């Protein structure tokens, strides 16, 4: 088998492995509040596309498009988010659950995210292996898979995992297009898919534009050195050699978005403006960070750095620091012409553009690492480089001592040991974090309890309520104040995770008053729900407290008998 063939086979295997892990991992993960919205919208979008195939003229009427994709309200049919993933969720549910009956409704909705995560891992491998070597690529890919938070998001019917994939995929295609014009239209379309997934994709030009300028400038300098005195001509030639790239991105990206989002067909400018305005004026959700509840700017400038330092496995971070050092040192010793093919700068710009908005102090910080998840594969690539560098260095050191052992054998063994240790460590942490990965923190923080000591956010989206359903099922029937899990309650009953007689009692005070059981999903700003329940039930004592590594995440109260 050729090296290229081996790389492709490995990428396919990694993709399949990742999908399997993500689908297995999500089985115990409760339904996140937003997922229910996206699932519902996705059902409608998929139905519309099927209708459109049957009768294009009727489906594309203003009334039909509005009924499926829009409406007068800013959140009607979830029109504040582009449709790609929701459409895939809807089709996936129809195929895997309704038709093939191979998955539960929840798993079927979530499968496209798992597939996209598989593609991310494959791209990380292919990219790093092509540039730095097979071992570097394999370790980078496995470390990207062994991220507790990223794996969590990869198992949700939401956009944060998929946008990370499509962000990295766009950069990969762009990088390939620098050497071959055939990749340019692919890069444009993939960026369009990213735009059709989440608005983060609007930041991609902040990565590509400066990199493109740098590549052109570096090429111009090389050409000018070869032909002194013809600097302008050199710049022109350097630009001309890649002039196919900007139009491909600028034209095909928005066109792809437009083609996939029928809501834009009705009034493109107004509907794009409404979409972006929604996010520019997004409400600031409550989020705990270093002991304070944040819901109003200015936010701390260091949120992205600290949160990354406390959530990415510590060994991965250390290896990334090593790899970064190796690349920075290698950068200056690389000839300028060779640097153009080196994606290190592109990956660094990816980190900067992905995390950059969170240094402004005005960007909402809720959701934390999921909003800059596209940055993390860059760290993992650096970690792959760092691990292999350390292993090769060790092999060289051992080779001096054990001169009878072949250098290649020593090197493979060293990479296996060091890479295995770092990947196994991150993997153990990732497995341990599930299904409550948003409560988990890394060794730097001291694990989940260390994160709680530091006053880091406990969780969000109400998904942890899944963990108390078995307790509720063991209790006598009664209506439940389901708190932040109320959007998921019907789905839990549909999936038979709750026996009959434990319906949702409704929201706020009236819901508490009508309930026999009450849940509080612990986030600092949710403390008020405890107090509402205390006042209604006349007791401060829960009957069950769900914990992850000893850290309370959901309390259940039972109304005392009168």
């Amino acid at each position, binding site marked *: 088998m050729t090296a290229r063939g081996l790389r492709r086979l490995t990428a396919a295997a990694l993709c399949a492995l990742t999908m399997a892990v993500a689908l297995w991992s999500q089985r115990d993960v409760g339904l996140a509040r937003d997922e229910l919205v996206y699932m519902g919208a996705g059902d409608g979008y998929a139905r519309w596309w099927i209708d459109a195939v049957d009768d294009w003229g009727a489906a594309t009427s203003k009334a039909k498009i509005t009924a499926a994709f829009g409406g007068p309200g800013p959140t009607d049919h979830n029109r504040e988010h582009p449709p790609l993933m929701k459409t895939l969720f809807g089709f996936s549910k129809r195929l895997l659950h309704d038709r093939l009956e191979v998955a539960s409704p929840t798993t079927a909705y979530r499968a496209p995210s798992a597939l996209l995560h598989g593609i991310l891992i494959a791209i990380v491998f292919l990219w790093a292996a092509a540039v730095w070597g097979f071992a570097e690529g394999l370790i980078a890919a496995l470390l990207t898979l062994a991220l507790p938070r990223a794996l969590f998001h990869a198992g949700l019917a939401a956009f944060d995992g998929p946008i990370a994939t499509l962000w990295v995929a766009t950069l990969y295609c762009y990088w390939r297009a620098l050497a071959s014009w055939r990749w340019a239209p692919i890069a444009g379309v993939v960026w369009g898919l990213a735009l059709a997934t989440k608005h983060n994709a609007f930041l991609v030009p902040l990565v590509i534009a400066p990199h493109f300028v740098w590549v052109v400038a570096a090429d111009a300098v090389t050409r000018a050195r070869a032909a002194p005195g013809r600097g302008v001509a050199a710049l022109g030639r350097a630009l001309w050699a890649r002039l196919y790239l900007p139009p491909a991105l600028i034209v095909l990206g928005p066109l792809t978005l437009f083609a996939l989002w029928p809501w834009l067909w009705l009034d493109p400018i107004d509907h794009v403006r409404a979409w972006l305005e929604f996010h520019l004026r997004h409400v600031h959700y409550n989020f705990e960070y270093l002991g304070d509840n944040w*819901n109003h700017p200015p936010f701390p400038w260091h949120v992205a750095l600290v949160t990354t330092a406390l959530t990415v496995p510590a*060994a991965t971070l250390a290896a990334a620091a*090593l790899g970064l050092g190796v690349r920075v040192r290698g950068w200056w010793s690389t000839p300028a012409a060779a640097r153009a093919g080196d994606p290190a700068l592109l990956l660094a710009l990816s980190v900067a553009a992905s995390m950059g908005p969170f240094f402004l102090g005005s960007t909402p910080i809720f959701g934390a690492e999921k909003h800059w998840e596209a940055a993390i594969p860059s760290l993992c690539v650096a970690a792959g480089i760092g691990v292999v560098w350390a292993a090769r260095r060790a092999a060289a050191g051992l080779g001096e001592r054990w001169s009878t052992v072949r250098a290649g054998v020593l090197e493979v063994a*060293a990479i296996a040991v060091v890479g295995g240790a770092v990947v196994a460590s991150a993997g153990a*942490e990732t497995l341990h974090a599930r299904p409550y990965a948003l409560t988990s923190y*890394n060794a730097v923080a001291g694990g989940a309890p260390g994160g709680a*000591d530091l006053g880091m956010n406990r969780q969000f989206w109400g998904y942890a309520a899944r963990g108390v359903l078995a307790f509720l099922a063991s209790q006598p029937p009664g209506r439940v104040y389901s708190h932040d899990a109320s959007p998921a309650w019907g789905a839990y009953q549909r999936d038979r995770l709750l026996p009959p007689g434990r319906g949702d009692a409704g929201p706020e005070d009236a819901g508490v008053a009508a309930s026999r059981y009450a849940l509080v999903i612990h986030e600092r700003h949710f403390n008020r729900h405890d*107090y509402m329940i205390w006042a209604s039930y006349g007791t401060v004592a829960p*009957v069950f407290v769900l914990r992850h590594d000893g850290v309370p995440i959901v309390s259940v109260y039972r109304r005392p008998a009168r």
Partner: protein
Amino acid sequence: MPPLVARFARLAPAIALCLLAAWSAVRTVGAGRRVPDDDAWAAAATRVRAALTGGELIVFAPAWIEPVGRLHLGDRLDLAAAGRLDAARFATIWELSIRGARAPETRGLTAAESFTIGGVTARRYRQRAAVVVTDFAARLTEASITGERARGPTAVLAEVGFTPRRCVQVVPQPDREVGLTFRDVELGTELAIGVGLADVFTRRDVRNPGELAVAVDGVELARWRFGVDDGWTVRTVVTRPGRGTVTFTARAVGLGASNRLVCFAAEARR
């Protein structure tokens, strides 16, 4: 560089990564073992329960473990104690803590008794308890109300600064004030007042502060502002024992100060 040192320098990054990987896995996967389990809590609670005579305050530290503490001892913590103005009226405070944490209520006190079971440390503190002669929140129905109010006043258990507070909650109209006058009430040597803005969402959406003034027999003794990030602030003013008229004046500061849920509790103490 000597050969041995040079060889070690070559091996050092790999060894460091392997050691860090091992430490990282052990520290995260084993993190739960550094938090006491239900057996430890049950054992500590049983021993504390045996020493309770009634009227003690029970607190937990760090704050994030409180749900577990209430799971085991919540039946010995009533709503009045949970929503207290402060801890001054309790002669005995039991603090159950883990991971070396301390509760703010026991700051400056010396433990009279202490034991640790399975990582749960229980400490009993004694202090000279303040005697409450008038609890104003409990006597809200006797107050006469003046001024321009949007809602209230009502006696509620509210969230102020993410803590429970049993208080009088009133919402003045923007840039207006509401007076609550309690006539012929018993006063002690001091008047303790706690106040803050209730409800995290209105604190987020409206950033104006609130203000509270306290007057006894027509003489203003204190006035202070409290903002959206100030939580529950407690002040104490000196009073002359006897009977008197006390007026609390709550103000929503600024024309944009809608939905200022001013939440206050006050106790005349001796």
